[in-house]
């Protein structure tokens, strides 16, 4: 009985941690962007203020029942993937639903959010939302290929579909997977650029083209939920990468350092690039990233 209580409390703590860290990372992204652009930039906690303001909006127009589901689906998908990803290596306060096959489950659940978004955006009737959703799904077909290839390579190489097992492999051998399976890491990082949807893969909500894309019609509380879900999801993605390729983290400080270093890759890359068009983006993902994914699989099969 006690362990269930611990688990629930731990899950809440995990969620709060993910929310806070994700929000601060978003704020730091804005700060870094501003510094590169010769500006002072907003304070790092600006995203919290924005979230608070959005939550305190008095009205939030909705266009039908499905529009409620959009943000809800994203939130559910974020939280579910958060529960699957181990935050720290051995820590009872951040428990996770560890089971065999959770990596495959994660692959599914990460797609779940954007699909829910698609349902919600369809209902709003805004053409920008519809086009944004189409672009988002096409982009997903792009980056999913190298991402899945990288994960499949890991699965083949270490004969496991469990994240915890993969972490244990790294702890036992003493080397991170980014060194023992470099091709998988490269493919996965390239896929991560698409996952974060920062430039050059920000076609989904490109302001100059689609206003803000799928979320065009969502204001106030809807946007608040989406923003929080996005922050949690960013944390999930970064933690997952740290777990899979960078040996996990023993304590929070190491986790934050590792995730932040990883987060700098899409942030800094986004500052120097022009936006890809959808077809360019897909072609890009099916080019070098997929090639590295293929190399990773070959490595996994032939050079165990």
């Amino acid at each position, binding site marked *: 009985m006690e362990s269930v209580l611990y688990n629930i409390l731990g899950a809440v703590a995990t969620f709060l941690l993910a929310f806070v860290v994700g929000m601060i990372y978003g704020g730091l992204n804005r700060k870094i962007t501003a510094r590169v652009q010769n500006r002072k930039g907003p304070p790092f906690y600006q995203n919290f203020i924005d979230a608070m303001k959005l939550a305190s909006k008095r009205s939030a127009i909705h266009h039908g029942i499905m529009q409620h589901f959009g943000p809800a689906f994203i939130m559910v998908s974020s939280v579910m993937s958060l529960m699957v990803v181990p935050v720290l290596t051995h820590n009872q306060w951040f428990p996770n639903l560890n089971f065999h096959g959770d990596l495959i489950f994660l692959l599914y659940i990460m797609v779940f959010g954007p699909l829910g978004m698609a349902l919600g955006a369809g209902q709003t009737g805004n053409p920008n939302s519809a086009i944004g959703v189409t672009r988002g799904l096409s982009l997903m077909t792009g980056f999913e290929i190298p991402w899945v290839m990288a994960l499949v390579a890991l699965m083949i190489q270490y004969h496991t579909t469990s994240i915890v097992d993969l972490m244990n492999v790294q702890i036992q051998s003493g080397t991170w997977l980014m060194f023992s399976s470099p091709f998988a890491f490269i493919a996965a990082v390239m896929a991560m650029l698409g996952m974060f949807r920062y430039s050059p893969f920000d076609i989904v909500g490109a*302001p*100059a083209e689609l206003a803000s894309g799928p979320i065009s019609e969502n204001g106030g509380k809807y946007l608040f939920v989406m923003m929080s879900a996005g922050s949690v999801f960013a944390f999930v993605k970064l933690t997952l990468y740290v777990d899979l390729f960078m040996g996990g983290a023993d304590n929070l400080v190491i986790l934050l350092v590792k995730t932040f270093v990883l987060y700098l890759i899409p942030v800094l890359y986004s500052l120097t*690039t022009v936006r890809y068009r959808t077809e360019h983006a897909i072609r890009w993902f099916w080019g070098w990233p997929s090639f590295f994914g293929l190399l990773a699989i070959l490595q996994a099969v032939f050079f165990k």
Partner: protein
Amino acid sequence: MREKETTLYIGPQHPGITGNMMVRLKVTGDTIVKATTEVGYLHRAFEKLQEQRNWLQCFTLMCRFCVPEPDPAEESYARAVELLEGREVPERAKYIRVLVLELARLGAYMLWYGGQNGSLGLYTVGQWSVGDRNYILDLFEELTGGRVYHMYIWPGGVRRDLPKGFEEKVLRTMDYLENRLKDYDDLMFDNTIFQKRTQGIGIVSKEKAIEWGVVGPVLRGCGIKSDIRIDDPYEVYDRLDFEVPTQEGGDIWARALVRRQEVRQSIRIIRQVIEQMPSGEYYNRIPNPQKWALPKGDAYARTESVRGEVGMYIASDGGTKPRRTHFRGAAYVHGVTLLEKVLVGANISDVSPIMNSLGVCPPEIER
């Protein structure tokens, strides 16, 4: 199977539009089948208002035609009045006018860097260039008292003489900007994604360009050497040494390259103007504006702006107020007939880059 046609509205409230206007797109998939522009959101009836004002009062309305670069409109008006009246302009005023026009051109190009890159998602260059534009606006503020609206080029000369030490400040700013331009180029023109997004997109055909009324950098991007500063020289441009860059291709990339060269040519012109600046009067005094009547007749003066030819037509009935004024902006052609033609067959992602590249400035269209 035929794809379904949907209608998409870009504007009037849209972050990608270059002003307050609307483009109605008929789209199948991602491809535009038909584009219709709808303008009139900024119609202030300048031409009507100018009929109510006397010849000098008109002049305050003049700079409001197109905000990014107000000085060519002032210059056109001042020159049209001078042509009609036969008024002489002092030599020094001519040089100061060229200096102001080229500074304004630089400022507008800085804004273009921002718009073009913003539409393509490269906000860093846009932030840098719009930030650096402040240095040019500082010069304007010192010279004319206003950051955006200068009302500086008057019929008969300019409103004020250059302040003390202004030349050195201009030269220092030019040195700074020239250094900064390298940074922009590194991030923008050397960027493969930028090339991919702009090459072969928004093509204006070379054969039809002149007939369609294409002017300015867009025409030069088609490979046709045409610049009013050379063809129909005004002020002292015929005494200055500068090149008119052209590019083959007629796409966004070609136009961007043309503009990239033109920024450097502007800096070159400004340096020459400062070097050659004569001393003397800066203003040929006009009579009491309340009683200042122009002879009957009409005149048309045109000036090269960043968007191309802008012209001012004035018709006088011999009174103290204009009978009719008309402003011909480059965007009047680029923003309606040309845009509708160029957008057909383009991708929806390219609407905003194409509009920025053509230099569509809505207040010029409806005035």
